[in-house]
Structures are given as structure tokens and as C-alpha cells.
């Protein structure tokens, strides 16, 4: 790292101060790493979503481009790049052009504070979780801009709905995150993870019953904030053509979808960080991997983090094909009548819990973990039951 900085300084930027060159080099490397991670990830996620959707509907899904259709997203991307970039005559041109980048920026900047491993984080901000919530709701500015700038009533309605929805759901999301912040006593993502353990009963989700409830509240709120089904009212295709992105074409259109899928990942990462112990790995595994190579623990932590995140990504994708879209009044009723009061109740409950039991209760932790385990077992039993009732054979093979 230092060699690289001195090399660049001596050969290319001799007049500039060394610290500035170092900062620029670090910035560029971080940017490249994130860009190289996010861009293919959003693409592969789009493939994954289409494939999961297809299998849930007893179809096959994309399987033509590349092995098993894995390169479908590249083909789609190239197609979109080559498309004509249309701007409607009645559009508010600067807003129309700016909007997709704002949406993309809002999603992308959240990746800066996501803790992938104990040392693998671009910036461990001391207001980390606040920063993530703030930047991810920056997208609403872009969405409203797109809705207004398009000069079309469908886009306008989509933009307005998205504003109403995202702003409303910020409240339960913030309150649900507050329970964890209370427990951790910190806003920093790394500190929150460090306060949890590797084992399920050491996670914040099982710390007390209120945390378990706020886990679900946060999951619902973030799904709604990311405009994911069943809360995808801003782009409800059966009502609003395609909502705020109706008038967009080509690469600008892709930016919206890019942001949507990146947001799916951010959702999983936030949930993992706050409730599922983030990158925490068992002590024995840490020592074993550290014995082999000093950087290996970071990779193991990264894998743990990604696996946990992918569970949420999968759940949210599955939710899309399980539940029908809610009506706008149902959406608002869910937020203001159910999530907000319950979230307040959970915050107060957690605070009271911390006063009554300053060190938490081991028994409650184990009980909640066992309960969750039983629920998961029952869930798989119900899946098997469904297969048996419909007399269909289990065929897990994802390759077709």
C-alpha cells in the first residue's frame, strides 16, 4: 500500500502532498472494490430472482445465455446500453436525467458503511446505522424526481406513492433499529456486531422477546422501504404501468433496477448486522483459520456475513411470490396502526428489560433460540406436508 502510494507520488504526482495521494489511492481502491462487488452482484441477483420466481411458479426461468442462463444479466445489460435513450417531450429534462443517478447514489453510498468482516469495511462510521438509514432514504428524492420529471400521470402517481410509503416506513424501521441501538449502546455497525456473539443465542434477535418482534418489524419496514413486493405500490405494474420508471428507457431504466437489487442486498446486510450477529464466527474457527493465513479469518467472516445476508435476500424474493400486493390504504394502515405502535412498545419494553435485567437473561435467550429452531423445523414439516398432500415428488435439483 505504502509502496504503491510512493510509486504514484514519485512518478505521476510529484508536486502533490503525500497524504493527499494516499487518500486518493485509498479512495480509488475502495471505490473499485465496491463497484466490482455491487455491479455483478446486482446482476446475478436479478438472475437469481428470476430463477427462484420461475421455480416457485413451476417454470424453469432463464436458461439460455451462458451456462444455466447465468450470463442473462450481461445480455440484458448490453441490450439496455444499446437502446435509444428517450426523453419525453413534456419531461422536465434536468430532473428526468438526474433522477436515476440519485436513486443509484442513494443505494450505492450505503455500501460504504456495511461491515463485511471485522477489518473489511470501507468506513466504520460512528453513526453507521444512522448513515445507512439516511442514505438509503435518499433514494426517495430520486424517485419523486423521476415521477415529477417524467411529465406523465403514471410516473407522478408512482413518485407520490413512493414518497408517502418510504417516509412512513422510515418511522417503524428507525424504531425497530432503536431497540438494537439501545442494547449495543452504539450506532457504529462494527460495535453492534462486536457486541454480539457467533452463536444464535448471542444474537440480538434472541436477546429478549421485544427484540424478536422488532426484528420482524424491521424486516417488513425495510421491504416496504425498498419498494419490494408486496409493498411495490410505486411501480405496481397492474395499476401504474410501471410507476415512476414508466418513461425511462435504456441505461437509465437499468439504473432503477440496479438500485432495487442493490437495495435488496442492503436490506439483508442491515438485518444481518443488527440482529444476526453480522460477521461473527466461533472462536475456534477464527483461531484455526488465523493459523493458516493472517487474512483467512476475514474471508471466513465475509462468507458468514454473505450467507446470512443471502438468507434474507431469498426470503424477500420468496415473499414477493407468496403475498399479493397490498392496497395503498392497507399499506398505510399496516404502518401506522400496527408497526409504529408495536415498535414503540418494543423500544419501551427493551429499555425496561435492560433496567430490570442489566446483563440480560440466559434462559430467555436459550428459550427464544429453541422457539425459533422449532418454528423452522415446523416450517419444513409444512413444506413436506404440502408436497405429500399434492402428491408431488421432491426435486431439489436447481439445474435444468
Amino acid at each position, binding site marked *: 500500500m505504502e509502496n504503491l502510494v510512493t510509486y504514484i507520488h514519485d512518478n505521476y504526482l510529484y508536486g502533490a502532498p503525500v497524504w493527499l495521494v494516499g487518500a486518493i489511492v485509498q479512495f480509488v481502491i475502495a471505490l473499485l472494490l465496491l463497484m466490482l462487488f455491487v455491479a455483478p452482484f446486482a446482476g446475478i441477483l436479478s438472475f437469481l430472482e428470476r430463477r*427462484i420466481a*420461475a*421455480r*416457485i*411458479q*413451476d*417454470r*424453469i426461468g432463464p*436458461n439460455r445465455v451462458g451456462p444455466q442462463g447465468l450470463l442473462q444479466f450481461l445480455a440484458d445489460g448490453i441490450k439496455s446500453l444499446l437502446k435509444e435513450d428517450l426523453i419525453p417531450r413534456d419531461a422536465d429534462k434536468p430532473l428526468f436525467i438526474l433522477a436515476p443517478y440519485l436513486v443509484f447514489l442513494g443505494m450505492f453510498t450505503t455500501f460504504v458503511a456495511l461491515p463485511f468482516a471485522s477489518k473489511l469495511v470501507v468506513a466504520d462510521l460512528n453513526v453507521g446505522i444512522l448513515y445507512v438509514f439516511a442514505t438509503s432514504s435518499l433514494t426517495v428524492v430520486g424517485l419523486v424526481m423521476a415521477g415529477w420529471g417524467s411529465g406523465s400521470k403514471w410516473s407522478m402517481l408512482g413518485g407520490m406513492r413512493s414518497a408517502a410509503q418510504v417516509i412512513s416506513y422510515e418511522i417503524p424501521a428507525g424504531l425497530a433499529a432503536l431497540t438494537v441501538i439501545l442494547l449495543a449502546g452504539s450506532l457504529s455497525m462494527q460495535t453492534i456486531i462486536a457486541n454480539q456473539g457467533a452463536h444464535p443465542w448471542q444474537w440480538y434477535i434472541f436477546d429478549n422477546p421485544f427484540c424478536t418482534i422488532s426484528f420482524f418489524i424491521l424486516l417488513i419496514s425495510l421491504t416496504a422501504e425498498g419498494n419490494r413486493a408486496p409493498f411495490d405500490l410505486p411501480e405496481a405494474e397492474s395499476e401504474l404501468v410501471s410507476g415512476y420508471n414508466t418513461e425511462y428507457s435504456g441505461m437509465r431504466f437499468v439504473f432503477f433496477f440496479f438500485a432495487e437489487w442493490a437495495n435488496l442486498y442492503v436490506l439483508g446486510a442491515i438485518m444481518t448486522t443488527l440482529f444476526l450477529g453480522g460477521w461473527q464466527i466461533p472462536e475456534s474457527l477464527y483461531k484455526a483459520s488465523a493459523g493458516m493465513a493472517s487474512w483467512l479469518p476475514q474471508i471466513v467472516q465475509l462468507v458468514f456475513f454473505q450467507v446470512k445476508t443471502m438468507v434474507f435476500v431469498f426470503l424477500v424474493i*420468496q*415473499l414477493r*411470490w*407468496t*403475498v399479493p400486493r397490498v392496497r395503498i390504504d392497507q399499506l398505510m394502515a399496516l404502518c401506522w*396502526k*400496527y408497526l409504529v405502535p408495536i415498535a414503540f412498545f418494543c423500544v419501551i419494553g427493551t429499555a425496561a428489560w435492560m433496567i430490570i435485567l442489566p446483563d440480560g437473561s440466559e434462559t430467555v435467550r436459550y428459550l427464544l433460540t429453541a422457539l425459533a429452531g422449532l418454528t423452522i423445523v415446523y*416450517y419444513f414439516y*409444512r*413444506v*413436506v*406436508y*404440502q*408436497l405429500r398432500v*399434492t402428491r*408431488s*415428488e*421432491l*426435486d*431439489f435439483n436447481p439445474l*435444468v
Partner: protein
Amino acid sequence: MSGYLQNIKEAATSIFEGFAITLSHMVRRPVTIQYPDKTPRPVSDLMPERSRSWLRVEMDTCTACLMCETSCPIDVIKITVAKDPDIGRHMSGFDIDMAKCMYCGLCTEPCPTGAIHFIPEFERAAYSLEEMVEHFIPEGGKVVPFKPPKKEKAAKGGDDASEEAPEEGPEESTEASA
């Protein structure tokens, strides 16, 4: 308040069940058949038993009665019958223009031996109309018509006679009533 809690309970349980149903669908084999490249069995086996696809004539049971040719509403079938001093009455050509065929199946019905019939095969697209004409007798070939054995013929003839009589009866009566 009880309604409020009831709503939460219903939402939670129904979404839970919904998740179980969607996951159970995800671990099933897709019903899609990837037609041209990957089929579980050969395509002709996948077709229904009585599907009307391509016509075939079994030349060794064809009696050259020309029933199919006359029954064809659009003159798809062309049979050339000739007489030869050596082998007598024979067919020198049996052509079916599949590009013209409308798959009505009227030719298969009057065939006394079932020589002309549909086969469950349909993937025979061609680049020219000439290629779509099927020649069941090669150029210059001569096929002697099939003659049903005498004994069987006599028995069959008796059957035919007994069958024909009641068959004609109702037909006439329906015509009369109409």
C-alpha cells in the same frame, strides 16, 4: 383490541403457510417441457396416442381401393393405378402432398385395412413445397395391391354385409327425418 390481535395472528399464520406452499413449489420439478433440446422422452412418444400429425401408408397392406383418394376433400392423395400383362393391376405411384393436407383424417376412415393412418410425428418441416410431397412408391416402382385372404374375406364379407345393413338403416332414417 381482540380484533387487532386477531389480525396480527391471521397475518402471521397465513404468511407462514404461504411461505411453506411457495417453498414446496420451489422444490418440485418444473412442468415446462423444453421442447426442441431437452425432452424427457422422444417427442413422438410425448404426443397423444390418437394425435393427427403426419400420414403414413403401409404399402404391404394397401388394397389400392382408392377410397382415400376419393374421400380427400382437397385432393392431397394421388394414386396411380396401372395394368401390366405380367403382374396385372398394380400401383405405380402413391403420393401425399403434406403441404396441402389439412389433417382432417377423412382418408383414414374408409380405409378397409387401416393402411393409411396418422403417426405421432410432426417435425418434418422442409425448405420447399416439393420436399413436402411424400412418395410412398419410389420412382419406377410397382406395388401389387394387397389381397385379403379368401377365407377371411368371405367371413369379413358376411360381417360387412350384416354391419352395413343396420348402418345404412339409421342413416337413411335420419335423412328422412331431416
